[in-house]
């Protein structure tokens, strides 16, 4: 009961924190792409997911904005990097890359009580 009450209160308090004003069509499309390519199977997002590859909740800041994100994803070699943990080449269109970048920007603007501790995620 108390849990339900707290949950209800949380859900009502979310508009202050969850950056929903920036939740555009493009961001929603970015989230679908994020899911349909299972990025969470290697990465964490706000600390949840897999621990194989860098945290992406703050990747927007770490990579210096959307251009950095797009450049990184685009430049993954098809056969990986010998000996190094590799990220697949997803062959996204420019429009898709834009959507993913905007999605990661939106996530980076969620109020996470100052987590992660530093830029390294």
């Amino acid at each position, binding site marked *: 009961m108390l*849990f339900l009450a707290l949950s209800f209160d949380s859900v009502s308090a979310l508009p202050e924190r969850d950056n929903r004003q920036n939740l555009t069509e493009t961001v929603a499309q970015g989230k679908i792409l994020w899911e349909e390519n299972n990025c969470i199977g290697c990465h964490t997002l706000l*600390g949840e997911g897999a621990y194989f590859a860098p945290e992406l909740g703050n990747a927007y800041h770490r990579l210096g904005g959307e251009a950095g994100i797009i450049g990184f994803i685009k430049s993954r070699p098809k056969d990986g*990097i010998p000996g190094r943990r590799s990220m697949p080449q997803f062959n996204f269109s420019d429009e898709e890359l834009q959507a993913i970048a905007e999605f990661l920007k939106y996530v980076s603007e969620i109020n996470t009580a100052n987590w992660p501790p530093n830029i390294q995620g």
Partner: protein
Amino acid sequence: MQYQSQSVAKLYFIAAIGLFVGQILFGLIIGLQYLMGDFMFPEIPFNVARMTHTNLLIVWLLFGFMGAAYYLVPEEAERELESPLLAKLMFWIFLVAGALTVLGYLLVPYSGLAQMTANSLMPTMGREFLEQPTITKIGIVVVALAFLYNIGMTILKGRKTVVNLVLLIGLAGLAVLFLFAFYNPANVVLDKFFWWWVVHLWVEGVWELILGSILAFVLIKTTGVDREVIEKWLYVIIAMTLITGIIGTGHHYYWIGTPEYWQWWGSIFSAMEPIPFFMMTVFAFNMVNKRRRNHPNKAAVLWALGTATMAFLGAGVWGFLHTLSPVNFYTHGTQITAAHGHMAFYGAYVMIVLTIISYAMPILRGRQAANSNRSQVLEMWSFWLMTVSIVFITLFLTAAGILQVYLQRFSDTAMPFMVVQDKIALFYWLRELTGVIFLIGLVVYIASFFVGNDEPEASVEPTAE
């Protein structure tokens, strides 16, 4: 076996063990990919192997829970299963659906699988542990409903015991909470908030009820202690589970955009979550000490005590380690989390399934109560091999985690993720080697089903009292 229909459990147990092998093989693959990043790339990238590893785990545990229910519900209710035919049918549906899903993961790129199964109609894929195509998820719900109907009717028309009712509540809760897997809003915070209603409320809520009731059943059978005593323990344990575990969900609401009061609620209540696990340990050892007779199936008693101990260590101790919000601020989403996840899942849910299999399988295979000594000795070897391996895997991951937290998050000269991963590679090697020993333990476990079958059943020394 007292009721003919209990025999359907055997199918479920065999499938569970088969999928367990698959889970461990994929575990070894991803463990190696941690170290040799290009291993199997791009054919089987890490994320695909990982979802195979985790999904196989969940599915085989569900097979185990269902097998456990089909075995113990008729015996407790003192009547045959409502419909053994339905149980067999659902077995094959679940197995085929599971196999197709895993083949889909391995043979088609994940985005292709999403396309093929029309994920866009109702997007539910691509979230951790809930990677299954929407159609598979619907299949899971159908199987769960048929299953609940089957054991629900058996219980309703039969004797109602506390063990049966707690099990039924746990299983029904499992099915109901799974429905939140279908809720996937575009809002990341809301998505994560309710994702935990599936994941946390499963493992730290309703699954604990299932765990408690199976443990209680095996203890009643093997120790001969009065049912009333065991039921009282079970009541108190599940009450504590629900009191602490439900609001304890808050320990996942610290940093995902939810209000900051969760840092208090989550820390305080989840800090009490070890209590029910500790009670389970005390409970199991107490009952075994007070036993009225020595049961010839020593392996099953060992598994039961092992479960109670390892669940407390993995969930209670390793959970507590990182559950307070000031600690979690640094450890959130690191190898510390992985260390805890491994020991908790193994200690609580893998071991309880192996406990009921150990208890029931000899009987399902036509023995009076137990396997031959030779088979039991082998089984106990496998117990120690697997259990000690998981302890060491947990310790190595914890060491890796502490270093990771320090180098990447705590020190004044924080280093990038990939650099830190290189520096802690030694521990990943040790983890992988220990994983190989775990696999050997699992092979020994399976071998124990094949040895000593033509030897007489183990018998008991005269009772203590």
